[in-house]
């Protein structure tokens, strides 16, 4: 007898399999049935991969039958954002251009998930090519926040946050370039982790802004998120920017004491946010104080320049990364074109949505002759200053705590008309990406209207263990 899918954790799946309460195939069948029936309310999944999921579940069951270890994620139903390629399973990136794209290879993170025993149920909705903060830029319709259906789930990994919040997957993978994991995690009330840049291989992550792109996990608790990172992280020779740094045992780190840890509150992150958000984050900080953390104020003086620097760098990189969608190799093609050049233009003009066009235009502009130094080079120098701010702060403290977003989930359509206002909602999350440090969102209460609020924890390069330790201590104390 399979238990309710929306209440599962990695541990409960492990226990159930070990005690033979259910098989992986039974669990997967039920998870697919439940996810498919629940999906119309949120539109969080774009498509399911029934065959692949059941094949993987049978592999897990065979291992269990032989008395072998089914892996740390054995039989766990997970979902993967549709910007991460899956061999033989449609990968659209939320774009009309890739509506029928079936990748001939798997992303490294996908291979590692399955090696750890996880069962991928399907691919999740997202903003087109991961560009957006509300999941309203998907060519296949917006995702609704399962906590409040008239609200956005955040973006761009809105689907991956929503499936975990809705309980249609135990955990999921998303991608984060400027907050695309943490912001939706905070809007949907789940845990979302952006690891150190290079911690997880980007091989098979469809490129948006290569120097800023990260793959990371969503889960309903800190230990599940840590288990996913443990499985997907580490050096991969298919991504030359993936780091050699060894992965510590995150599970061990979870149980370590936080007493005496120094936590910094960057004052620039507590200005101009909704009072309810600030109150909840400060209450969480009080909990950590009670657990023995030492809290002090710090300053990250270049924070106010981050949005400008970020949107110059990410659009510049996007404009060159998205040049590959030309109607020749794997995208759909606009047929009414006499010349090659017209074919490119028509295909791209008809295929990209408004936000992608805006970012391609902006990126092309800032890289164009006469503007490169004023915008792109300048932004890269500001990136140095922002990163230096973090290094200096980490000389005084072990971790930083901030809000994830200045406000909780907003209504569908609320910010669509004004792109600059949408960009400004990323204010607290983009700095972590610019500096490449690990950062995560941990649920820390709900507003009077019942909307989740997230606390962001940021630590030094490669110190995900320290970050998990704080998050877990907080979570456990609730």
């Amino acid at each position, binding site marked *: 007898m399979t238990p309710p899918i929306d209440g599962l954790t990695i541990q409960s799946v492990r226990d159930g399999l070990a005690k033979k309460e259910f098989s992986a195939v039974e669990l997967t069948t039920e998870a697919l049935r439940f996810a498919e029936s629940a999906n119309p309310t949120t539109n969080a999944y774009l498509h399911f991969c029934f065959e692949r999921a059941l094949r993987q579940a049978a592999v897990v069951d065979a291992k269990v039958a032989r008395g072998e270890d089914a892996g740390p994620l054995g039989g766990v139903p997970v979902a993967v954002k549709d910007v991460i390629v899956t061999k033989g399973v449609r990968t659209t990136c939320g774009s009309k251009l890739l509506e029928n794209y079936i990748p001939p290879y798997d992303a490294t993170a996908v291979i590692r998930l399955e090696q750890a025993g996880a069962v991928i149920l399907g691919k999740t909705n997202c903003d087109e090519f991961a560009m957006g903060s509300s999941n309203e830029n998907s060519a296949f319709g917006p995702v609704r926040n399962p906590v409040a259906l008239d609200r956005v789930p955040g973006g761009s990994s809105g689907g991956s946050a929503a499936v975990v919040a809705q309980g249609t997957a135990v955990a999921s993978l998303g991608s984060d370039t400027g907050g695309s994991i943490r912001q939706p995690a905070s809007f949907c009330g789940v845990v979302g982790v952006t690891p150190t840049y290079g911690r997880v291989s980007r091989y098979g992550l469809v490129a948006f802004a290569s120097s800023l792109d990260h793959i990371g996990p969503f889960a309903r608790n800190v230990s599940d998120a840590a288990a996913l990172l443990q499985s997907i992280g580490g050096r991969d020779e298919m991504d030359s920017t993936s780091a*050699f740094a060894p992965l510590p045992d995150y599970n061990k780190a979870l149980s370590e004491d936080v007493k005496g840890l120094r936590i910094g509150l960057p004052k620039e992150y507590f200005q101009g946010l909704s009072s309810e958000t600030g109150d909840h984050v400060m209450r969480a900080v009080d909990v950590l104080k009670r657990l023995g953390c030492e809290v002090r104020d710090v300053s990250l003086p270049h924070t106010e320049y981050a949005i400008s620097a970020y949107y110059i760098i990410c659009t510049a990189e996007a404009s060159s990364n998205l040049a590959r969608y030309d109607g020749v190799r794997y995208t759909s093609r606009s047929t009414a074109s006499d010349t090659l050049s017209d074919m490119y233009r028509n295909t791209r003009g008809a295929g990209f949505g408004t936000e992608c066009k805006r970012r391609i235009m902006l990126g092309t502009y800032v890289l164009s002759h006469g503007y490169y130094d004023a915008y792109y080079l300048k932004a890269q120098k500001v990136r140095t200053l922002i990163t230096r701010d973090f290094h200096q702060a980490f000389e005084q403290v072990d971790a930083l705590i901030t809000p994830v977003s200045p406000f909780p989930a907003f209504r569908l359509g609320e910010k669509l008309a004004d792109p600059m206002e949408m960009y400004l909602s990323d204010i607290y999350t983009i700095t972590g990406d610019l500096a490449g440090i690990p950062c995560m969102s941990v649920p820390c209460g709900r507003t009077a209207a019942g909307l989740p609020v997230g606390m962001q924890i940021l630590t030094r390069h490669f110190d995900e263990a320290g970050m998990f330790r704080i998050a877990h201590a907080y979570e456990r104390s609730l």
Partner: protein
Amino acid sequence: MKLTPEKVRYVADLANLKLTGEEVARMAHDLDEILSHMDKLNQLDTTGVEPMAQVLSDASETATLREDAIRPPLSNADALQCAPQPGQGYFKVPKVIER
């Protein structure tokens, strides 16, 4: 700063992007707003600051290079599987030059 429709069309041309008249007007307005926000960076003196292209590298330049070993590549059929117009083992495109 004012971004003219001509400039927008020029940039769209560089980006191989066909925009409708309506899109050109909207783009001029949106980019103008975003670029004026970005001008904020000019308030900062960045003399002597190194530009940052890559977040971190914990390895020497050659450590990231893998062994130059032959391995099976993506097959021709796999590579062409999603092509809008494959033919004779190639990607077919509209005429590039007049004969």
